[in-house]
């Protein structure tokens, strides 16, 4: 097919004849062609990417290569000797564009343009076309070369990139150095609420008001590229503004993109509203916990397993006199020298958790050391805190100086009170003992007087001596009872296992005279062994049974003694009588010193018997009480600890 073209060309353009016959060299072997020309022709013929077409001065097609056939769709037979205007769109043809192109090219030598062209099948494509004029030596135009390329082919590969851009999960915006948007993806459209054509060519500040455009502009000290380079790969947090004016937090990643238009910037923009909200929530939560920590009345210190302080509150700063920064990372041993750090370290027998578990919730009393080296007593409560760093220990530390001082003060007061009690009892003992001597003289000599001189003086003298004798002997009884009362403590023996039964029998034996005189019936249940001072237990029974027999008007006074075990290792003893009974208003009073409910003429006594009973029971760690009704007898009850060996 090319043989004809070549022949035609050779006849028309002798200087190019050789060049144009390359494709048909097999048919032109008889022609004297230069190797070079033949090679050039082969090259043109083989070009697939470029359509290379030779035109005569009127635009008639003189040659046709493989690229032309591929891009424009015509076989060489179909197009040779046809006008090239059929490559233009009908609109261009109407406007006389083909003629215009030839005229301009003829005038200026070379014309380059991008424009739509039409294929044989009528489809349009974007082409980049270069038209070059061919002249004879005399300057006359002999024809044109039209070299064109289908730009849509290169656009196809661009489409692949566009696909990639669109597939990106983030909004992507490409901005030029002037801060104008040159490209964006569908995510960007969605996020900012604009249609693509509303944004292309617009200032990027419309959608990212601050912080982006500034980064594109080099300040005096660096180039835009340098400015950018600093930001590459970093997530910059900014605000995006939607078409409706609402703003939302974004994170943006910049990367430079060199292009024919200069350095472009690709920005990957991510909506971080959700993340920001979560962060805010977390910050709020942490804020609350910190608030809780700071509001705690105690010093709080969190310590890791190495014994280093990792967190503390304001109270801890105050108590120990350090600034927070001075304590964080320090060994807890510096502020609590002993007893805390040791508990963090598991010994060979147990794990840290076990070691801790033993201490949880217990208030340990340790010593804290302030920054100024002064020490103060603390109570410390530990609790484990699982964290990413392993088990931390939260310690609530309370300054117990005040409590300690109060305790010491209380202890001191108790000691003082005990001492004063002891002194008082000692005093009572000594006073009553020493009172006895002069009183013995008074009593003895008034009795001697009475004995020797009764009836020898006058009646007044007898009466006076009588009162003196009576007063002295009553005083003697009071002092004797007082001595007995004070002896309950000063002369008491240690408690030991004592047979209740035996103590009762001794008491009854001591009371045999009174029992015989009154005709009383004293009965009892089996009595247990108890922890007691036997002498005092005898005295206790003796006083209670003695009272039961004494305060009587019954024909046959009856007294019954029994004991029942209570829940807690104690026996409740009861001494029940059928005597006069006691008005309930005196239930408390009768156990006081020198308290009497009856006139001296009715019943003798100093009113100290029950006070001694109360003191004895209390010395044994129990209490005594009475239950009674006037005229219906009384029941006295007291509790004593059971003996371990019954």
């Amino acid at each position, binding site marked *: 097919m090319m043989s004809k073209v070549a022949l035609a060309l050779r006849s028309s353009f002798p200087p190019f004849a050789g060049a144009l016959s390359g494709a048909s060299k097999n048919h032109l072997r008889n022609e004297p062609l230069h190797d070079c020309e033949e090679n050039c022709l082969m090259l043109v013929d083989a070009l697939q990417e470029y359509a290379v077409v030779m035109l005569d001065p009127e635009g008639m097609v003189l040659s046709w290569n493989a690229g032309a056939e591929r891009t424009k769709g015509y076989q060489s037979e179909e197009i040779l000797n046809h006008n090239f205007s059929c490559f233009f769109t009908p609109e261009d043809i109407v406007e006389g564009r083909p003629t215009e192109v030839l005229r301009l090219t003829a005038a200026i030598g070379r014309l380059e343009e991008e424009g739509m062209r039409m294929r044989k099948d009528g489809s349009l494509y974007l082409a980049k076309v270069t038209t070059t004029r061919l002249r004879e030596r005399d300057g006359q135009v002999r024809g044109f070369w039209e070299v064109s390329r289908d730009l849509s082919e290169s656009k196809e590969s661009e489409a692949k990139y566009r696909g990639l851009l669109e597939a990106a999960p983030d909004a992507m915006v490409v901005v030029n150095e002037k801060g104008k948007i040159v490209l964006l993806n569908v995510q960007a459209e969605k996020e900012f609420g604009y249609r693509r054509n509303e944004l292309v060519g617009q200032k990027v500040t419309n959608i990212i008001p601050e912080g982006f455009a500034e980064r594109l502009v080099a300040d005096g000290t660096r180039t835009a590229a340098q400015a950018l380079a600093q930001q590459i790969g970093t997530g910059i947090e900014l605000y995006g503004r939607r078409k409706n004016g609402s703003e939302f937090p974004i994170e943006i990643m910049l990367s430079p993109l060199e292009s024919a238009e200069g350095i472009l910037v690709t920005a990957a923009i991510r909506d971080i509203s959700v993340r920001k909200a979560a962060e805010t929530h977390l910050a709020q939560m942490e804020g609350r916990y910190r608030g809780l920590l700071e509001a705690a009345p105690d010093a709080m210190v969190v310590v890791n397993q190495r014994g280093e302080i990792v967190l503390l509150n304001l109270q801890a700063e105050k108590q120990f006199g350090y600034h927070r920064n001075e304590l964080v990372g320090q060994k807890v041993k510096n502020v609590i020298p002993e007893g805390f750090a040791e508990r963090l370290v598991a010994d060979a027998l147990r794990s840290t958790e076990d070691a801790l578990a033993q201490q949880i919730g217990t208030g340990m009393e340790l010593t804290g050391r302030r920054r100024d080296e002064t020490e103060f007593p603390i109570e410390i409560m530990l609790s484990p805190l699982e964290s990413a760093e392993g088990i931390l220990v939260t310690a609530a530390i309370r300054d117990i100086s005040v409590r300690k001082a109060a305790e010491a003060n209380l202890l001191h007061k108790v000691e003082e009170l005990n001492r004063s009690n002891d002194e008082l009892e000692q005093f009572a003992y000594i006073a009553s003992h020493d009172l*006895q*001597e002069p*009183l*013995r*003289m008074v*009593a*003895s*000599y008034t*009795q*001697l007087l009475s004995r020797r001189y009764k009836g020898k003086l006058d009646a007044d003298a007898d009466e006076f001596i009588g009162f003196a004798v009576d007063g002295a*002997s009553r005083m*003697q009884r009071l002092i*004797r009872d007082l001595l007995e009362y004070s002896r309950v403590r000063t002369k008491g023996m240690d408690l030991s296992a004592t047979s209740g039964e035996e103590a009762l029998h001794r008491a009854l034996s001591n009371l045999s005279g009174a029992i015989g005189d009154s005709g009383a019936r004293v009965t009892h249940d089996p009595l247990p062994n108890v922890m007691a001072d036997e002498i005092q237990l005898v005295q206790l029974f003796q006083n209670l049974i003695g009272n039961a027999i004494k305060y009587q008007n019954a024909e046959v006074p009856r007294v019954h003694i029994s004991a029942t075990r209570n829940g807690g290792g104690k026996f409740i003893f009861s001494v029940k009588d059928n005597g006069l009974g006691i008005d309930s208003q005196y239930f408390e009073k009768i156990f006081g010193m020198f308290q009497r409910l009856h006139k001296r003429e009715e019943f003798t006594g100093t009113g100290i018997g029950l006070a001694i009973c109360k003191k004895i029971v209390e010395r044994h760690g129990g209490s005594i009480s009475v239950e009674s009704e006037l005229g219906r007898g009384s029941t006295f009850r007291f509790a004593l600890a059971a003996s371990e060996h019954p």
Partner: protein
Amino acid sequence: MKTVNGKGAAFQVLLVDDSPGDARLTREAFLAANPAIEVHVTTDGLDAMSFLRHEGAHANSPPPDLILLDLNLPRMNGREVLASIKEDPALKKIPTVILTTSESEVDILKCYQLCANSYLSKPVQLEAFEKLVTSINDFWLVKAKLPQQGGSDE
């Protein structure tokens, strides 16, 4: 009852007591029990030792058949007097009875360790006291056999 020593008074009793009231009461009680007893009274320990050793104002004192010794005495207390008596070969044979208001266990033990012949507490009541003195007389001066005066010097 005039037996043993054959002197004017049947018995010589030395009472060592600093309380004149007590001393008089004891003397009254002894006289009530046995009028033949002569009661000599010294009011402190040193005076008692002078009496026993016939020294000073007591050069002519009789050797007592019985000593009644109180413990609370000025200058030289009852225990010291007791110790001196029991260390003295001439005096230790004389029955020495402690008669005191003290009921202290310590006093009782100490006195027996120092070889007191008995330890008696003074009863508070007059009648009880009189009974006690009577029983002292009955036991030490009537029933008990005592060594001859002066015969025991070794």
